């Protein structure tokens, strides 16, 4: 008898276990499948399509630990109709989940090397799973460095976890804000300015970047300037993903389908496209 693969276009019902407000406009959903079935394995950087019934479906990166799949964890920002409706979900509400989809961060390739993660804003969410992996498999990697930039101190995502990671002698965590407010005593400036300050060997480094595209371009350029080979720089792209399996073409990015070939790309694959103006 042949096992039937689940139809990737059919959402599976998941129950909201917990909704946590992270900042004024970001929140984390913890989900468990209805009926107690398993959560499919996922890799760092992959995304799911989350469906708020009667409102719509959007792609959201998985921000939980790949080694602890239950509950399924997603952090996002309430910016559109669906994500705003999602923020209003309560425990025991049910939403649809399809996935996981897409490419993943190069954590296998990074073994034996220094790993530098550069995240901006909500871009930390798709990279948190990498942090969990690095921490759990610490002996496999060289230096582990997290560079994080936020708009203001109140926009810092996962603040408690950042403090926890920063207290870990085995991790280097640098946080900066674009605009200092209140009693902020940390760094002020853009995240790319942290790159010259961070301790890593550029000749033996894998860099992973996620954030607004402009931030990623400038950050990748700074990594190159520091001496990181372009083929060792990875970024996570976001486009208008709909089907998530490379059929509908909504997320087509010249020769690539971001949902299927991405969201994680080797920077050298798409560097030339990032500066092209889109119609």
């Amino acid at each position, binding site marked *: 008898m042949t096992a039937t693969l689940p139809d990737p276009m059919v959402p599976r019902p998941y129950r909201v276990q917990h909704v946590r407000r992270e900042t004024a*406009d970001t929140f984390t959903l913890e989900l468990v499948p209805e009926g107690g079935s398993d959560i499919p394995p996922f890799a760092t950087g992959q995304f799911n399509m989350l469906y708020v019934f009667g409102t719509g479906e959007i792609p959201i990166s998985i921000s939980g630990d790949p080694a602890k799949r239950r509950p399924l964890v997603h952090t996002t*920002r309430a*910016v559109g109709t669906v994500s705003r409706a999602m923020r209003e979900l309560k425990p025991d509400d049910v939403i649809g989940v399809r996935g996981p989809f897409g490419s993943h961060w190069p954590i296998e390739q990074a073994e034996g090397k220094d790993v530098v993660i550069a995240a*901006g*804003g*909500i*871009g930390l969410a798709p990279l948190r799973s990498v942090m969990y992996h690095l921490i759990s498999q610490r002996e496999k990697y060289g230096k582990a460095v997290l560079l994080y*930039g*936020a*708009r203001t101190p109140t*926009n810092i995502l996962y603040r408690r976890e950042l403090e926890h990671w920063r207290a870990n002698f085995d991790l280097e965590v640098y946080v*900066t804000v*674009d*605009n*200092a407010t209140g009693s*902020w*005593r*940390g*760094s*002020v*400036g*853009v995240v*790319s*300015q942290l790159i*010259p*300050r961070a301790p890593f060997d550029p000749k033996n480094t894998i860099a992973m970047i996620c*954030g*607004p*595209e*402009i*931030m990623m371009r*400038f950050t990748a350029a700074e990594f190159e300037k520091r001496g990181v080979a372009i083929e060792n720089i990875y970024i996570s792209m*976001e486009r208008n993903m709909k089907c998530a399996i490379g059929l509908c073409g909504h997320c087509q990015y010249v020769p690539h389908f971001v949902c299927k070939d991405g969201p994680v790309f080797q920077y050298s694959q798409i560097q030339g496209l990032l500066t092209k103006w889109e119609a």
Partner: protein
Amino acid sequence: MQTLESILAGHPFFNGLEPQYLQLITGCASNTRFGVGDFMFREGEDASQFYLIREGKVALEIFAAQYGPITIETIEAGEVLGWSWIFPPYRWHFSGHVMEPTRAIALDGTCLRSKGEADHNLGYELMKRVAQIMMERLQATRIRLLDIYSDHPGGRL
């Protein structure tokens, strides 16, 4: 023990500078230390020096009535603080407020300017290095002006 010349040679700002120029510049340099809360300089004062930060963190601040001090950016180890010493009227545009205990090399601007005038090759070297920093800070400022983390269309997420 490290000499001033070797400290200067090890700072990214002077990376690759020819030894005879390093020797000349050392004559304009002195070691300095600042405690938390100290002002290395204040807005409007004469900018007679600039600093190569060796350790610590300094906030570049401006004072705004009704708001108090606003931090423009922070300057940290390996970085350079100040370019007002190059251009007339040689006055600080911002204040340098120490956030963490800071060790720095202070370079006398008048001394450097006179050496640069006497030897234009040295002057050009200094100018290129300062221009590089100004360009990097300008780029960073431009990114911040875009406010890329906000939810307007320029923001991604």
